[in-house]
């Protein structure tokens, strides 16, 4: 049996009468680049929000096997606890701390898991100085890793879309995650930025050993990057498999084109 990192079992998420996720079951293996695709409104971002503790599904279980493969139940945990457990994420419309510099953005991620230590901060004792140095070093390293070293002191709101995506990835990685959830990382980026982003995502997995869970509309990017895919439509999983299997799947084609493959052939 392969080593799982995420195990989602029959999760149902409702908002009043609207069913956003309907009996969704899926899993991710450790070290895998997994993608979730589907038309708009299929429930992809709802799934992400359920995996990160932002939404609380009414039914089902979500188990995260983080550090030391210790199983942790995500449902019922607050978002900051999920982050401490080792799940990092980026947002569909990137959510930077826009008035802070790129450096500060990443540093906030690097230091958030240490204790608060107000007294230490007010007196600036040796432990606080040491902590500052460690987070600075980590921030420098991560900015270099995503290729933003020369933009470190730029206010994050003035970064290009591509650079913001990289910055969000660096901020997520600063929290020492086991898995990184990327919500449409290629949205709003130009073709050359897309290529760089693909390389970066692969590098995160290969060099840092962080598993990647990806939502994306850009099929070229998904098919070249993902090792396995799940397809969501109207809140349910309608298909799963390798990129080649998904390309040939009738249900997927129907979900995207709005008519069954047979009907299309017949007409």
């Amino acid at each position, binding site marked *: 049996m392969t080593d799982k990192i995420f195990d989602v079992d029959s999760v149902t998420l409702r908002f009043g009468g609207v069913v956003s996720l309907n009996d969704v079951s899926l899993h991710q293996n450790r070290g895998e680049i997994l993608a979730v695709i589907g038309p708009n409104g299929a429930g992809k971002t709802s799934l992400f929000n359920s995996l990160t503790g932002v939404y609380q599904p009414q039914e089902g279980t979500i188990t995260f096997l983080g550090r030391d493969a210790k199983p942790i139940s995500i449902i019922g945990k607050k978002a900051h606890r999920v982050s401490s457990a080792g799940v990092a994420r980026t947002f569909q419309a990137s959510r930077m701390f*826009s008035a802070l510099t790129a450096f500060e953005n990443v540093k*906030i991620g690097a230091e958030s898991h240490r204790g608060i230590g107000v007294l230490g901060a007010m*007196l600036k004792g040796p432990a606080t100085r040491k902590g500052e140095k460690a987070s600075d070093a980590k921030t420098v390293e991560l900015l270099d890793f995503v290729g933003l070293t020369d933009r470190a002191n730029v*206010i994050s709101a003035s970064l290009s879309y591509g650079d913001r995506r990289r910055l969000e990835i660096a901020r997520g990685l600063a929290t020492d995650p086991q898995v990184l959830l990327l919500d449409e990382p290629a949205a709003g980026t130009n073709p050359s930025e897309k290529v760089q982003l693909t390389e970066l995502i692969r590098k995160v997995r290969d060099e840092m050993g962080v598993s990647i869970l990806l939502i994306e509309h850009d099929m070229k990017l998904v098919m070249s990057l993902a090792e396995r895919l799940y397809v969501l439509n109207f809140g349910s999983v309608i298909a799963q498999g390798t990129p080649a299997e998904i390309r040939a799947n009738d249900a997927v084609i129907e979900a995207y084109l709005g008519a069954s493959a047979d009907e299309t052939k017949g007409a």
Partner: protein
Amino acid sequence: MKTFLNNSMVRRFMMAAAVLAVVAVMTGPAGSTETPTAGFTGSFSERSSFFGFFETVRWVPFLFLAVVFFGLWTTWLARGTQIKSGVSKVMAVPRAATERRPVRWGIGAVLLFVALILPHVISDPFWQAAMVEQIAVYVLLAIGLNVVVGFAGLLDLGFVAFYAIGAYVTAWVTGALPMPPLFGIHMDPFFAIPIAILIVMAAGIVLGVPTLRLRGDYLAIVTLGFGEIITIFANNLYGITGGSQGSSLIPHFSLHIGPIKYAWGLTPVPYYYLTLIFVVLFLAAFSLLEHSRVGRAWTAIREDEVAAESVGINPLKYKVMAFAIGASTAGFAGVVTASQSNNIFPSSFTLSFSINILVLVIFGGMGSIFGVVLGALIIQTGSMYLLHTPPAGYQSSDLYIYLGALLVVMMIFRPAGLVPSRRRRREIVLSKAGEGHPDEVLTGDEP
């Protein structure tokens, strides 16, 4: 018609005229029950001198001032307030903190020197007392509220509650309340400092944990209610607080450590230096806090709470902490005031007190420690000046009209305050340009 109103010059002139009309009414004659509108009409029709040159009706000099004001606004003040130039300005690569440090230390040293020699320069007893009771203590309160409002972005309208608790704890531990003091010992007010800070922090946490889940306006209402509750308790719990008569037996501070013996008394100057020591200590602690990981976490929460949570920041914990830290300075200020004036009355702990402190913070620049200190100095000195040498027709309750008008003008011209904090100013300019989330304290919007 629409194009006429959209013309920015016309709008500016209208606004300048409106501001000066308000000033005219504020400084004009008062009405009476027989002639309720006389205060308004008289403000424009009464005869007055045109800056000492000739006699005319009042609206003429005010119209003249409106024109001058409009001229200044369009030429000089408007620079930098346009969003476009504002954005490029705040987007500039910030200078490293180390570059600014010598300048800041220099200004700080000069200000400290001035503060140290000031009581020897000013001998007027009114001003010597005002320097402690109305200026130094208010500076302390303002830097405390700045942690809550400026750093953490929480609108607290009940700050007076913590100040009142601090004052009542002092009365309690020194044995000046009907309630017997702690362990039955009448302690020196110095011992009240740690006890008051602990109790006030506990009160901040007890109030904070359930209410800080609320956002913006809701939090403001709850804290406002808390401030009122404390005052009503103080007023009505006769057996504990002494009711509406309060307490008049609180002793002065005194030191007895080995050979050192010193007692503070009725003269305000020793109290001034005592307060100054604590102001400097709190200033140093809070500026280190601002640039620590705690300060950055507060900024992150203020800007985007969802994103902050996604990197592992617990917003509730940090908000409660800001609340408790801010409360502790108010508690400390309460100890100093109670001991210095020897008496406390529930009627002095009012909503307008909280509003006064909030005005100092907003005027000075939310989140900017230097700005808040400067704002508190300017406003409190100004209001003491009005009290000391009142212009014709001025009553002490008029102060809030002036403070309100000042806030309106500030919100139009410098919404980030007199000396804006860099982060705050960026947030405001960026949110105007549709980038990022405006702060809930200013807009009431949910982020």
